[in-house]
């Protein structure tokens, strides 16, 4: 396992380097002069020259690239043009909020998806199954930026049960987490249904039932554990969707996380912060996928890595 982990970590290095290169290239894709684009057309030339020097844009491209990678190795993501603070500090201050929202959305998604998927698989082909399928397809098709405002109208404004903006106690996170977790739960419930239904048809489950195991025991103790691997894989892959969805959900519910920082930075053309946010989200995604790979062994002892 340790050897596998070391190999996976080693293989991650070129991907991380590629991600860093692409993020570095972003600022150079700005049409015309990036410094002028950031400050606007009416900014005095002296300010543009100063900003170009500050960002190192007056240096040869290779020098800029080496300096960028050097900065990353020291966790230096540059300086925010909007606040003047280090980008890393700005992001770190908002990271707990995004982490909290992502975990809450995942909890909402799993606690809806798994029971729904299990029910659909056990009662496959019945009205319950069809209803669950339609519900999950509707969930996948519904844009989060539409569901969020609708939830806010019903539960925040009409019923007055929950706050619709900001971060605070548990009640503040419910609407953003449901809004972000809805599409995710739809995807996961479909996967749970398919994999569990496959497992329920396997001889070991039939044998367990023949020995007198109840439906609940056969499903939960025998089949469910074996269907966990694809579910965990998909949940891991969906972390990407959660992080992207967080950009929109945080904007709708004024949740003070990295996603909202990204949108605010785009609006104010604070490109060093945009680069930092994108880099952080991509690196988090890579890390989660690596962790999911390692989780396989814990879930299924039959898996041995060479």
């Amino acid at each position: 396992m340790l050897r596998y982990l070391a190999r996976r970590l080693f293989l991650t290095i070129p991907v991380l380097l590629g991600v860093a290169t692409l993020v570095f290239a972003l600022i150079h894709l700005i049409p015309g002069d990036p410094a002028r684009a950031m400050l606007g057309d009416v900014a005095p030339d002296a300010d543009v020259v100063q900003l170009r020097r500050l960002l190192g844009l007056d240096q040869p491209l290779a020098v800029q690239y080496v300096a960028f990678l050097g900065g990353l190795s020291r966790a230096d993501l540059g300086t925010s043009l909007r606040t003047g603070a280090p980008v890393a500090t700005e992001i770190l201050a908002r990271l707990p909020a995004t982490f909290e929202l992502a975990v809450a959305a995942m909890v909402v998604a799993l606690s809806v998806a798994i029971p729904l998927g299990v029910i659909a698989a056990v009662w496959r082909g019945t009205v319950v199954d069809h209803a669950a399928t339609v519900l999950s397809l509707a969930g996948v098709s519904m844009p989060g930026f539409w569901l969020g405002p609708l939830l806010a109208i019903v539960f925040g404004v009409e019923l007055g049960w929950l706050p619709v903006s900001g971060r605070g106690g548990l009640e503040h996170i419910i609407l953003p987490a449901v809004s972000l977790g809805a599409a995710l739960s739809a995807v996961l419930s479909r996967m749970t249904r398919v994999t569990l239904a496959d497992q329920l048809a396997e001889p070991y489950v039939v044998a367990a039932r023949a020995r007198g195991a109840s439906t609940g025991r056969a499903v939960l103790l025998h089949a469910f554990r074996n269907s966990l691997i694809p579910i965990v894989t998909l949940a891991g892959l969906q972390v990407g969707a959660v992080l992207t969805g967080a950009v929109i959900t945080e904007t709708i519910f004024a949740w003070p996380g990295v996603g909202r920082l990204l949108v605010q930075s785009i609006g104010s053309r604070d490109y060093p912060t945009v680069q930092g946010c994108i880099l952080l989200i991509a690196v988090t995604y890579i890390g989660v996928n690596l962790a999911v790979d390692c989780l396989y062994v814990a879930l299924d002892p039959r898996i041995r890595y060479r």
Partner: protein
Amino acid sequence: MRNAGIAIVGVVVLAAVLGPWLIPFDPSAQELALRLEGPSRQHWLGLDELGRDILSRVVSGARVSLAVGLIVVSVSAFIGAIAGSVAGYYGGVVDDAISRVIDVLLAFPGVLLAIALVAVLGPSLTNVALALSSIGWVGYARVVRAQVLQAREFEYVVAARAVGAGSPRILIRHILPAALPALTVQATLGMGGAILSEAALSFLGLGVQPPTPSWGAMINYGRAHILDAPHLTVFPGLAIALLVLGLNLLGDGLRERFG
């Protein structure tokens, strides 16, 4: 389920194609005296914050959504099919190089890279299509590569090689047709994804610019009036959900049919 998908997508496509003749009002025409008015006999879906007919704007928005979806899917599928077939057919260093590029692009979650690209290129419909295509091809490349890896060992391919057929001919005439069903499923599901992504970018103000009607942008502007005029947000959202649901049903049906 597939028939339901065909019906939903068919209705939206018809509305988009016949839109200019179907819509009761000019989507940009303003009746400021009636702004934010709810659904009525004259304006079935009500009017927006500038007094524009929402039904006419939703129908016009279908053209934008479908156009972006079609462009993104066509460009992505074209690039993905070439990259995937070249990687799968030639293998070795070529496959390694293309696969590493795919790995790097897959390290960016969802539409995040598209958001970043449009943020630096500037908000416009062209840049949205460009950004979504530049990440969208990866999914097609993976599907086609897997299919080509299988197909290149088939006997009819080996036979074609033995009688002297060149690599481009083998790829285009013999191998790519075998990957077409998988590519079709991917394209149908990818179209729903592209439409949702365009709407998300327009919602963030990075996509279609006013006064062109776009479902995502309509929801964004409608948010400011969500308390006094929820119809501004509800109808464009319903349109997105319905079209994406139709495409998902169709894609699922095709996947079951093609295995």
